[in-house]
């Protein structure tokens, strides 16, 4: 944890290079191959940045698509070029890990609207020569999934063995199963929901307003004006970060402990460790994320409502599906509580779908899916092994 170091107010923010020409793999689609969006807009040219791990087998049946969460990226199991940190799900994905790259071919793409190489608000708008900013059409979870499907097409893969993700990644896993049931053998939404609740939207709105209240936001045109709304984005991150943790985990980690001092200062410095921790979280976040991307991606989550998309019945989204589902929630997750997962399970039962549902006992809140939670790993590993057997591909531990 960082000590309280007042960050220079003029942070550079995210470097433009990674959003334009990422260090990862990249597919570019021309203006003649546009992406048709839920808003009715056509986006083109556009590009999608992705990473792959492991080897595609000869009958192309072992692909696992990993979908990242709000501020995640395609570097699921390799070093992030911006932060220099290990992949965000290195505990889950890799050789010998639950998503075993010795057996599965793993794809992870930066989401549409993101800022690490896939077209987003920081991408240069060919019509103006400047970053899109708010001229980028609003995108949805379904649009993100459409973009991924185009990537999967491009890679010549017909069916995905599994689609997995936590939080917003879980929304994509559900959307995949609803939009392309015949292309998804197994879907694993973790700590997710079939819709964003009013409370979820409320927290996102707080974050967006923090960004837009920053004078450096400049109505979204900060890149042209060479400033960055880092303060607003940092506050958005701080507020959001609290929602990813449980009261219990905050209490255990920080309690009311003071930061590098023995007494209260009777001022507004970060007296408490939790304050210092949050400030640090906010400050480091602005170096790896674009403020407008934060607006777009949170908006996509807010708009997500699979029930609405299928005329008020979530069961309709999965009618006749052959996809196997593994739904997972965590006991202390109050942002995407178990009740939301349960309503997905209920709908899947109404569709007589093949579904597993596991609630994992963890006191670490919504973020549990990113952490070292052995029971989660065992479950995913077991579920994938069972699914691999059903799919007729060698599971980890079985001969290839």
């Amino acid at each position, binding site marked *: 944890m960082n000590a309280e170091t007042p960050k220079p107010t003029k942070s550079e923010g995210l470097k433009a290079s990674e959003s334009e020409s990422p260090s990862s793999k990249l597919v570019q689609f021309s203006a003649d191959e546009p992406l048709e969006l839920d808003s009715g807009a056509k986006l083109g040219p556009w590009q999608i940045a992705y990473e792959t791990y492991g080897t595609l087998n000869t009958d192309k049946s072992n692909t696992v698509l990993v979908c990242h969460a709000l501020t995640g990226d395609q570097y699921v199991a390799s070093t992030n070029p911006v932060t220099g940190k290990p992949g965000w799900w290195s505990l889950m994905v890799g050789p010998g890990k639950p998503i075993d790259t010795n057996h599965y071919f793993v794809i992870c793409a930066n989401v549409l609207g993101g800022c690490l190489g896939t077209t987003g608000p920081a991408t240069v708008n060919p019509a103006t020569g400047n970053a899109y900013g708010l001229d980028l059409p609003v995108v949805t979870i379904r649009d993100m999934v459409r973009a991924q499907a185009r990537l999967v097409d491009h890679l010549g893969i017909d069916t995905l063995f599994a689609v997995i993700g936590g939080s917003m990644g879980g929304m994509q896993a559900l959307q995949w199963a609803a939009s392309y049931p015949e292309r998804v053998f197994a879907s694993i939404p973790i700590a997710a929901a079939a819709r964003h609740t009013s409370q979820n939207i409320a927290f996102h709105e707080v974050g967006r307003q923090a960004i837009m209240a920053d004078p450096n936001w400049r109505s979204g045109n900060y890149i042209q004006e060479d400033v960055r709304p880092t303060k607003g984005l940092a506050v958005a991150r701080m507020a959001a970060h609290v929602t990813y943790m449980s009261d219990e985990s905050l209490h255990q980690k920080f309690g009311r402990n003071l930061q590098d001092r023995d007494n209260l200062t009777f001022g507004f410095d970060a007296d408490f460790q939790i304050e210092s921790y949050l400030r640090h979280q906010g400050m480091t976040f602005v170096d790896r994320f674009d403020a407008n991307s934060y607006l777009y991606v949170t908006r996509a989550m807010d708009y997500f409502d699979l029930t609405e998309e299928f005329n008020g019945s979530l069961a309709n989204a999965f009618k006749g599906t052959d996809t196997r589902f593994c739904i997972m929630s965590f006991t202390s997750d109050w942002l995407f509580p178990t009740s939301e997962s349960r309503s997905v399970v209920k709908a899947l*039962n109404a569709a007589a779908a093949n579904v597993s549902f596991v609630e994992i006992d963890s006191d670490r809140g919504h973020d549990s899916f990113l952490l070292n939670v052995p029971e989660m790993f065992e479950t995913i590993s077991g579920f994938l092994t069972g699914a691999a057997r059903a799919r007729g591909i060698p599971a980890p531990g079985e001969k290839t």
Partner: protein
Amino acid sequence: MNLAPRQNRPGEVRGDHKVVASLVPHGARVLDIGSEDGALLDLLVKERQVDGRGIELSQMGVNRCVARGLSVIQGDADTDLSDYPDHAFDVVILSQTLQATRAPKEVMSELLRIGKQVVVSIPNFAHWRNRMQLLFKGRMPVTKYLPFEWYDTPNIHFCSLRDFVDLCRELDADVEKAIALSAMGNEIPVSAPWWVWNIVAEQAVFLLKR
């Protein structure tokens, strides 16, 4: 749920599971209610190649089932069966669980609605050992097979085999097969009239259809 004591050693297939499995057609779409640790479902998937799913009350049991590659959800036979559409499964199995449900008749009726065939196994409360305990000791029966005291038993709706057959009749369900079992789950290989089984059998497996 684990309401009847485990009779077998680890790795050994339980006798009543073998009998239940013998009633399930190959490749059937199966719902196993009360999956416990997944032993029966695993047997069905491996030996009958079923498309199997399970419901289990305890979250720990569910997690263990999913970790061994079975499709199981946490749920309650009393409340969660209404989610499923009519005839969603070829076979629905309720193994050693009916006596622990709050509303056995409603549960039975749901089973018959969602399954084209229903397999139910129940302990027989009218077994002679139980009768003896009531008759001579004047106490609620506690046996090796049903080891709970009256005050802590999860089994709140015991019945005799005869009672169960009556319920089936009331629900308009045909008993296609009935197999009497010993406490160990072994089939009692003699054919006998109902009233004999109702004394001799410690448990029974029924194949029903409506």
